[in-house]
């Protein structure tokens, strides 16, 4: 092989490797790609400097609304001057540290629990304590904390509350409905089918309306159910129907042989589903499931229709104040970035889960 050493030492052409190689293969790979690259570059060159000029150079950050109207750039003051109302809404001003702490606990717990190898009984108890503390902070009425009515809960804490419990409760409910739809027991099957089709045939706004306006009419006089709770239940019921259909797709994708192998070992229905079918079926449908859950997160903004003030609605209220009208772009950019952070985290987390669940079939 010594005669070949010269050949072996030849490097690939410079045009195929390094920066040049990357640019060629990714940006100018064929006529269509080249045109796309040039168009994007031109558009970017036109708008990006303009945006930077507006957002950072000509912008004002901590002024009154009056000065804002005189500035040529972005008025970030609409965010900075109203931040506490925007985030906490009508929660009593001097007690707003309480929802802040509650949100910090929630986010820290979520971040801490992201690795399911840590999931155990102890973490379950920690979650129960954390949920209790969060509830206590929000509601008050104990340990010298002033009681705050849930009608005053608003802004980001309300958005997170509705989303967190919406997702937490709708997922298992959706899985149960999907299993119910496949059940051989006619009553359970019929209930699941009717539930799923009925709920999917109705817009969320209608559900929220019904929970807020119609549902109380059916209650006996004197009995009231918390408005936030009613909205929460509507979101859970609604999202569960969509989760159910996604999960059903996963169940249908399963090889019949997996059911038969589980049955032939003598596993009962619950063991078969829990140990064999669901772990595989749920994994298949992680991407669409996360899509549904992200939708659910964003759909919480529809509670505006029943006069709950989530973070989108508090933003609107700010923009209704004459001093700040006209700065909706800045205010909405701020809210959008908050939504983005949460949705993007969910999406990234789902990709992490998916890669962790690979069976490593390729690594021989």
């Amino acid at each position, binding site marked *: 092989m010594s005669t070949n050493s010269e050949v072996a030492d030849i490097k690939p052409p410079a045009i195929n490797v390094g920066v040049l190689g990357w640019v060629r293969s990714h940006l100018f790979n064929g006529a269509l790609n080249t045109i796309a690259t040039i168009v994007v570059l031109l558009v970017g060159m036109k708008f990006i400097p303009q945006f930077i000029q507006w957002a950072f150079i000509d912008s004002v950050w901590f002024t009154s609304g009056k000065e804002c109207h005189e500035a040529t750039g972005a008025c970030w003051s609409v965010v900075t001057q109203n931040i506490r109302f925007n985030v906490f809404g009508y929660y009593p001003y001097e007690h707003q540290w309480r929802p802040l702490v509650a949100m910090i606990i929630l986010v820290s717990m979520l971040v801490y629990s992201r690795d399911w190898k840590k999931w155990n009984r102890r973490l379950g108890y920690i979650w129960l304590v954390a949920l209790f503390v969060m509830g206590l902070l929000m509601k008050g009425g104990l340990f010298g904390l002033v009681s705050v009515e849930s009608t005053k809960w608003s802004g980001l804490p309300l958005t997170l509350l509705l989303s967190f419990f919406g997702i937490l409760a709708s997922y298992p409910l959706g899985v149960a409905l999907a299993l119910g739809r496949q059940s051989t027991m006619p009553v359970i099957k019929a209930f699941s089918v009717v539930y799923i089709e009925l709920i999917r045939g109705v817009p969320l706004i209608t559900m929220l309306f019904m929970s807020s306006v119609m549902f109380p009419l059916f209650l006996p006089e004197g009995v009231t159910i918390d408005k936030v709770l009613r909205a929460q239940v509507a979101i859970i019921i609604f999202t569960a129907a969509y989760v159910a259909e996604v999960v059903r797709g996963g169940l249908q994708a399963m090889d019949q042989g997996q059911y038969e192998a589980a049955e032939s070992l003598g*596993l009962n229905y619950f063991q078969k589903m829990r140990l064999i079918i669901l772990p595989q079926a749920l994994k298949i449908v992680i991407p669409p499931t996360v899509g549904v859950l992200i939708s659910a997160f964003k759909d919480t903004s529809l509670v505006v229709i029943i006069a709950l003030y989530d973070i989108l609605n508090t933003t609107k209220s700010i923009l209704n104040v004459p001093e700040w009208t006209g700065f909706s772009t800045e205010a909405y950019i701020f809210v959008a970035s908050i939504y983005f952070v949460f949705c993007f985290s969910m999406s990234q987390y789902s990709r992490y889960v998916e890669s962790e669940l690979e069976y490593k079939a390729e690594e021989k």
Partner: protein
Amino acid sequence: MNTEQLQENNDTADGQPVIEIINMHKWFGDFHVLKDINLRVMPQEKIVVCGPSGSGKSTVIRCINRLEEHQRGKIIVNGTELSRDLKNIEKVRAEVGMVFQHFNLFPHLTIVENLSLGPIWVRKMPKKEAEDLAMHYLEIVRIPEQAKKYPGQISGGQQQRVAIARSLCMKPKIMLFDEPTSALDPEMIKEVLDVMVNLAEEGMTMIVVTHEMGFAKTVADRVIFMDYGEIVEENEPNEFFDNPQHERTQLFLSQIL
């Protein structure tokens, strides 16, 4: 393999058939797939079922552990009659091992987890003990070194041996094989058949649906030939192969031998 234990299991039912199928019929919709099937299997008997595709041979053994439901007649397995009663079905399934054409290992679990799952959840065995048992049977099928791998990482022949070991971990009284070598590459068939021959020599009661006529000749006590949902002929292997009585059997044998 633990011969004494098998002996012991089977002694309890000595003289009695472990499987008794009486006048059994089955339909898929309007299609009459099984017609008046009668079969008695004694402890430690090895039965090979053969026949053209669509003859109902797989369906028969799938009825024995109720993966298919029969509509008329009786199936009694190990003293338990199969009916709609779920408890009975689970009881029978725990005593009857089944090996499938496509292995049907659980791809999300490692090999050792595949094997220990049944003992842990159905037999309520402690995890450690179940894993030791799993390793024991992996040694019997001669692949203990693959224990920590996933099914997708091993060859088809190895997967089928794991599938056999998975059934054996339940200490079944009867083993059913549904074309266990049909999905395998030729060079892997032998390693699976070897395991099955060993199992037969240890005294396991076996019903094997297969086209491996060599296996039938050396191992079977009886060969059953099925066609159009009926048992056409039933005989001990030498007679069956050398002197088939029925015309359809003769035709079938002339085609495959």
